[in-house]
């Protein structure tokens, strides 16, 4: 029943900062293994508070797997915290 893998990988992210409802949009990210993932759709972006610190959570997909990226607004870091493949 559990096809999610929870992670805490520091990742490098290419993101666009622009206009519209999603001011920040991750476009691609590179995992510590060197694997690069191109984001095909941003499903939802929502903020979450860790105390007074805000992280923005981006649920994205590359068309085959769903990923969760977290952007820490205080530390300016990105982490990959979950991947899920529902085709298993």
């Amino acid at each position, binding site marked *: *029943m*559990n*096809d*999610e893998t929870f992670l805490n990988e520091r990742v490098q992210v290419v993101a666009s900062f622009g206009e519209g*409802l999603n001011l920040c949009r991750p476009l691609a990210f590179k995992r510590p293994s060197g694997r690069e993932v191109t984001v095909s*759709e941003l*499903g*939802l972006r*929502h*903020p*979450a*508070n*860790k*105390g*007074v*610190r805000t992280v923005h*959570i981006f*649920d994205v*997909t590359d*068309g*085959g*797997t*769903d990923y969760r990226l977290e952007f820490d607004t205080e530390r300016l870091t990105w982490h990959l915290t979950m991947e*899920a*493949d*529902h*085709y298993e």
Partner: protein
Amino acid sequence: MNNGSYNMGRPMIMHIDLNSCFATVEQQARPMLRGRPVAIANRRTEHTSIVTASYEAKALGISLGMKVREAKRLAPELVVLESDPPKYRYVYHKLMDIMKRYSAHITMKSIDEGVIDFYQTTGEIQERDLVEVGYEIKDSLYREVGKVMNCNVGIGPNRFLAKTAAGLHKPNGLDVIDHTNLRQTLGTLKLRDLTGIASHNEARLNKVGIYTPLQFLDADATTLQKIVFKSIVGQQWHRRLRGWEVDDTSHDVKTVGRQYVLETRGMPRAQILQRLHNLCESVGHRMRSQGKAARGVFVYAKSPTSGYWHRRHMAPLPFYSNQAIYAQAALLFVEAPEDIKEIGVSCYQLEDDTDKQLSLFGDELARVQRVTAAIDAINQRFGDGTLHSADTLGTERHVKQKIPFGSTRYL
């Protein structure tokens, strides 16, 4: 106010209900889940109940309250996810923002539904066609949250009929009930389709020969008040069904509580008490966030062999610290049965936490007050659970914060 006839006024109450809210939000967030049967449970164990199912899952026979194990047996392809409160809270706030564009008088009834009162808004908005406004709200949700999001909209002359209208065509419906189609609409429903009529009230109505909503509508106020409900509730139903407002009320917080289904059966008592302690910390935090102190503590336990067990204790003075709540709960729990599967704790007889009363009782209470305030401030700064009792260390992995159904106080 007219108790006998239908409300002939223009319907100006709008009820908005997000469809299969948590499952839909997950399908919005995670595109690979779209079109698949998805269920949300509060914990990733087979004994947990499903709190929301996607429409694809409902089509396979999955229903709310069903145990995950049973659901997986019915639909092996079902994707079960653990609930993700911050995500749902975000969508709740987005919905609330959209609703506030139309009236300052909105009421969020729960995390996935709200009411807009157009009787109390600007003339400019009142002049608009509310059906058009309903479609505009659906469109805003689609554009501002995501393309999977949809909602049911119901418009009626009072909250009850607006909610009833919102339930007529799921998912993504928009319906209006007013005096012109009231009888026709109620004629298509069963008693249990009416909000507020569950098995107990249905049995009461059946006793006097009322088996359908239309018969309920045609019943006179005296019968409903004196024979069926034996209270003012009967009079209220008589008015409610006719489109007169009786539900525009707010309730003060009366209890604060939490419950937890133990992750394993046969858990040692010491571990159960640790989880109870964790619940007490959570209850204390919630209670203080509302500026309340309590006079009473209530605990319960459910056991497959002994059934439902509960105890309560009323203290002579108000209390609000986590330690005070747990000390009383643990004492009550001494008498709890063996073989427990679920525990719960509530604080009741809440009163405003005005320092005046406490300061009468000297330094010790003042010290507790300062320590509690310091703990709350640290947890607020660094996140819930940063500072807690050593006894509850490790329990946060199991006893997580969950979505409070039916209350929007903590969202």
